């Protein structure tokens, strides 16, 4: 396990951060936008992405969008990042509880999953509202581990313009955070969407991100089969199966909506024009 994690972590964070910073900056320019807006939760992913964004452009804005289920520590950590990058005049706090309340009254449910996803989508709507006002891009904060597991809300935290750290596993993001000089307690903080109290990614999945990342890395990057992965990592094969299953069943979340093909050139399946249309 340790050797796999070591291999996974052993990448050049200087090259990676230079690359991501440059790409954010260039993408903003190429898309004709003036800057980037980001939702900062105080977790590792949004903290790393915020720091990268602040290095890519002077024109960024941060929204803190707490709800009653947001731990106080997360808000404190978000402030630490804001101080670290000197963004004291570039952020706003919007408590989303009252917005959530009106949704709740309308749909009459207390289902925590439904309400949790609504929270994520409220945040998306706020980010896009500000992005339009400021002519900024919405900078997403999802990492490769979450994206692969489908551990995000479709059109919530998944509804963004770019995902700068979307090709880095969680453990790599933590290393990148260390490289960027983030406070160690943010770097090591357990990952949590905080959509309801006590929610943590690892608690929900039942395994640590070390295991998840080692499995994903061997499955996706090294293209190993399930039994070999369990053997290599000396873990129960059911854990590998579960992770593999999550990747498969969440594929629909990573793709644009399916269009049923009729014509000779259907959008997406045949019509392969690039996004960089001129």
């Amino acid at each position: 396990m340790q050797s796999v994690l070591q291999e996974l972590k052993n990448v050049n964070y200087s090259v990676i951060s230079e690359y991501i910073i440059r790409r954010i900056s260039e993408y903003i320019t190429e898309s004709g936008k003036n800057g980037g807006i980001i939702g900062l939760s105080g977790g590792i992913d949004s903290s790393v992405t915020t720091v990268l964004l602040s290095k890519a452009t002077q024109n960024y804005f941060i929204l803190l969008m707490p709800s009653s289920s947001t731990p106080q520590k997360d808000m404190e950590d978000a402030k630490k990042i804001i101080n670290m990058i000197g963004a004291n005049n570039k952020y706003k706090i919007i408590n989303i509880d009252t917005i959530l309340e009106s949704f709740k009254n309308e749909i009459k449910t207390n289902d925590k999953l439904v309400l949790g996803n609504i929270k994520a989508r409220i945040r998306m709507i706020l980010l896009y509202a500000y992005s339009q006002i400021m002519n900024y891009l919405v900078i997403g904060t999802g990492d490769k581990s979450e994206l692969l597991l489908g551990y995000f809300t479709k059109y919530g935290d998944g509804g963004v313009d770019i995902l700068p750290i979307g090709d880095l596993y969680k453990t790599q993001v933590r290393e990148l955070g260390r490289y960027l000089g983030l406070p160690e307690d943010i770097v090591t903080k357990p990952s949590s969407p905080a959509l309801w109290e006590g929610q943590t990614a690892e608690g929900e999945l039942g395994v640590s991100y070390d295991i998840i990342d080692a499995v994903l890395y061997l499955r996706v990057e090294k293209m190993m089969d399930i039994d070999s992965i369990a053997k290599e990592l000396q873990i129960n094969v059911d854990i590998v199966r579960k992770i593999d299953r999550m990747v498969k069943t969440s594929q629909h979340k990573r793709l644009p909506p399916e269009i049923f093909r009729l014509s000779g050139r259907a959008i997406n399946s045949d019509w392969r024009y690039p996004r960089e249309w001129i």
Partner: protein
Amino acid sequence: MDIELAQIRPKLGDVEYNLEKHLEIIQTSSADCIIFPELSLTGYVLRDLVYEVFKEAEKAVTKIVDNSKCVIFGTIKEVRSGILRNSAVISIEGNYDYIYKFYLPTYGLFEERRYFQPGDPLSDVKIFKYKGINFGVVICEDAWHPEPIEALALKGADAVFIPASSPMRRLEENLLIENNWESLIKAHSLMYGIWTAFVNAVGSQEEEYFWGGSMVSSPQGTIKVRARKFEEDRIFTKIDLEDVRKARFFSSFRDHNRDFHRLLSNL
């Protein structure tokens, strides 16, 4: 012969913009010959845009030819109606010719066979001469196979220019693809006693990002000049025949054994 490697950032599908960039560099260069990246007139990750830009690119070719001494650049050539090839134009003093990519990558992120027909080695291996230097050109993936450059060297090339569009991929300890290209061009130089110049594109095209880092290896396998990574850059070097001569005095290039190719043709 003084050459310039024009490491540009083509705008995907914007032939007019790319043409202007070519002309600007040509007008401001002091080099004898300028080499641009693969598909420099059109951009690389075109997908179906290929069908919409190739005619405009063909028109742009003559504008470059009319305004240059010696220039090598990338474009799409319609060799017969509806048959397109990933090509490089070799333009020398008002005359020009095309070379075509032989090996079209389809692995990983590449899907060139969907759009292009490969060149035919029996008719499309060509040598050009300018300022006393015989040179050949191969496009990107062709440098990852021994035969195209070996064929050029045996046909008399003293230098081989490699227009390329090499994207970032595979996180490793370093930028592995850069190390790979360096090894490749050094190996070609050492094996055949030639100058080898790799000219990469730079910047983003869709999800792909071209890392730049163009470089030239002398026939002795030394990197003579190297462009910046992630940025447009223009670098210069002198292609000197004396280095070719010296390298070949002390190499086994002359000892080509054709029976190996007979063996390969039956495998």
